[in-house]
């Protein structure tokens, strides 16, 4: 299995605070990788480094063999890295389908002059783009809502729309920042299945930031744990559950005993909360 994206010793500093500290990360192709950690651990900062909002002070980010750190965000997007946001960030005053069309931007070739004169190529391209956007809306289950303003959509639909916009880029790597935040258990389960199908059906490599451990443990091929910007553990879900440093990061010192007690009472069900 080849490597999709690799971070080598990546560090990002804000003033005196090291938000991400020499983090290594290797994500194999077609895998679902979860990044977990307490609040403020640097998970989203790492995402922002990958998608190009931040340029890391140190280290390399290598996407399919080519270094991408320091490239402009839109170039990184056009290489096939798409993302969603922790707090939904749609283009509120655009319709749902226009949001998806915006996601197709890296694929479009017509320039402004062609748009001005209405060239044949531009019109064909636009038609194909609209059709693709409709297909994507249907794929994420928003058929019929395409002409609604994005800000008028219900919360769950907005989350789906954000994913549809990311998919419009035909990404090779998808960064999902807390995709199940604010969802009930049923919606969460639905979203989990959906994320898995993205990998299985479309072959997209996925990195996930998630707080819901049930989701993380159920879906991930591998898990990376960050705490205070440093990677403290890495491995399969099973390994992470029993990792002492992880438990301490979440529960504080002495957490091990607490967890044991909890697990005994739960009759060995594997939950970290």
């Amino acid at each position, binding site marked *: 299995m080849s490597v999709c994206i690799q971070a080598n010793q990546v560090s990002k500093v804000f003033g005196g605070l090291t938000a991400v500290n020499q983090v290594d990360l290797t994500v194999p192709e077609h895998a679902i990788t979860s990044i977990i950690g307490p609040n403020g651990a640097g998970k989203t900062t790492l995402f922002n480094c990958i998608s190009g909002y931040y340029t890391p002070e140190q280290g390399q980010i290598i996407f399919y063999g080519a270094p991408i750190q320091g490239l402009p965000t*839109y170039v990184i*997007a056009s290489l096939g890295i798409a993302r969603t946001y922790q707090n939904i960030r749609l*283009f509120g*005053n*655009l*319709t749902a389908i*226009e949001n998806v069309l915006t996601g197709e*931007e890296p694929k479009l070739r017509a320039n402004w002059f062609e748009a*001005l004169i209405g060239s044949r190529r531009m019109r064909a391209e636009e038609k194909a783009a609209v*059709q693709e956007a409709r297909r994507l809306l249907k794929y994420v289950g928003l058929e019929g809502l395409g002409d609604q303003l994005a800000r008028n959509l219900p919360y769950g639909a907005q989350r789906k729309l954000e994913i549809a916009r990311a998919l419009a880029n035909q990404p090779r790597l998808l960064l999902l920042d807390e995709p199940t935040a604010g969802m009930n258990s049923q919606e969460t389960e639905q979203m989990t299945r959906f994320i898995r199908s993205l990998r299985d059906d479309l072959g997209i490599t996925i990195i996930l930031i998630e707080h819901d451990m049930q989701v993380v443990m159920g879906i991930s091929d591998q898990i990376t744990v960050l705490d205070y910007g440093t990677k403290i553990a890495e491995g399969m879900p099973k390994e992470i559950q029993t990792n002492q440093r992880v438990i301490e990061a979440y529960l504080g010192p002495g957490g091990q005993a607490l967890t044991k007690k909890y697990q005994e009472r739960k009759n060995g069900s594997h939950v970290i909360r």
Partner: protein
Amino acid sequence: MTEKPILRGLRTGLVFGLIMVFLFLIGFTDTGANLVAKMLGNPTPTNQHPSVTYYAIFMALYATWCGSAAANRVAAGTSLINRLGAGTVGGFTAGAICSLTGYIFGTLNQQGIDPRAYLVALSPQTIQLFLFNAESVASGALTLVGVMTAGGLLGAVLAVAWKAWVGKRLIGLKQDTGHLYQNVLLQQWKDKALVRYALLALLAAALLILPRAWGSYWNYVLGTVGIYIVLGLGLNIITGLAGQLVIGYVAFFGLGAYTFALLSAPEPHQISMNFWIALVLAVVVAAVFGFLLGLPILNLRGDYLAIVTMGFGEIVRILLKSDLLTSFTGGPKGVRDIGGPTLFGRPFNSDVDFMYLIIIAVLVIAFLANRLQRSRVGRAWEAVREDETVARATGINAFRSKILALTISAAIAGLAGVLFASRNQFTGPEDHSLLVSINVICLVIVGGIGSIPGIILGAFALKGLPEVLREVESFRMLAFGALLVLMMNIRPEGFWPASRPKLENQAEEAIAAVPAEQKV
């Protein structure tokens, strides 16, 4: 009678009264009476004060408005007496406040104190008129209270009658038109190509015939409106679509006008270039300046960008009239005898010809702006406006997008400048003051940001109406301010808000043309 309706009336009267006092202090009462006179078909001769009759009608109308507002504010279901009472109290309160003011100023006037040292517009005649040219101050003040109380009562009666009779009918009418709108047959009829072409043909005929029919005054007024529509459409691209607040937009207008003027006027450079070549060059120069200005500043956001562009606008104006450049730009006295257009070697510069030229410019720019707005370019602009950070991560080169928007906007402003300079055959630095920018921003906001029909409407409202209502010209800024405050409160999206294209449920035949292998 309970206490509440009276209090409501009192409060409404207080507001209306204080506004009228303010209007009196700035001398608007004369203007109001003049307006009434004009509307009744008996305009006041210039340099004369309006007659008492028209003034009385003006005050009574104002009090009627006050009374109906007061009556409408009383909670529904209160008795007739209460509502009428509220209106009367409203009119009386407003009248009392006004008459107190009138009494004070009337007395001062009698003692020979001229308030004009502090309030420029308050001439003795205006004060006299405010008191109905009465013999004594007291009787004038009493008349004022009487007229306004009667007006308040009338307003209340009208409001009650409206609610009881007309209001009910209106609701019925609204429902009827609603049904009509949903009527499938009508919808189909509206969508039919033939009908749309017929309407377009009608519009084209009107645009072709009207400039010949309505005379040079209207050609001048509507030509100005047309130039402002072009400016509005240009500003709409950078500010409405790309969301970058550019205040010094007039700079590009000035650059276009001056480039054209210097290339086509005999003074100060003796170039006298052909109109069309000069037009293209002027547009290019404006666009180049837009591009160059954009390079350093478009990374700024929000307020900073607004301030920097405002500075640029002022710099251009001040440079145009500076002593340093007098030999190059003509300095403060501007450039005269600017060339007019020619068509196949013949002059094409009568007022009718210019009106045609401006109409063509408006249509072409509106057509192109619409095309851009509905393409991927426009979508990228709007994405940048909505959330620049996210737009970048969806693959939009935000900086390039904004530079493109500013360049196109500047080019359009340059075109407007050419039309303006060439039509007036003159351009000077004061034609390009910050006020033009503010006017354009206002018309875009009032019309509807991002909406092409809205901008056309806004230009008519903000440039056309003041030309027609010459009387209120000195109060234009006041009216603008009031209008903007009102719009922001009542209809922040503008008169004619932008509509979004319906892409998901578009007619299927539009997609059928796409080659099969592209269908997924």
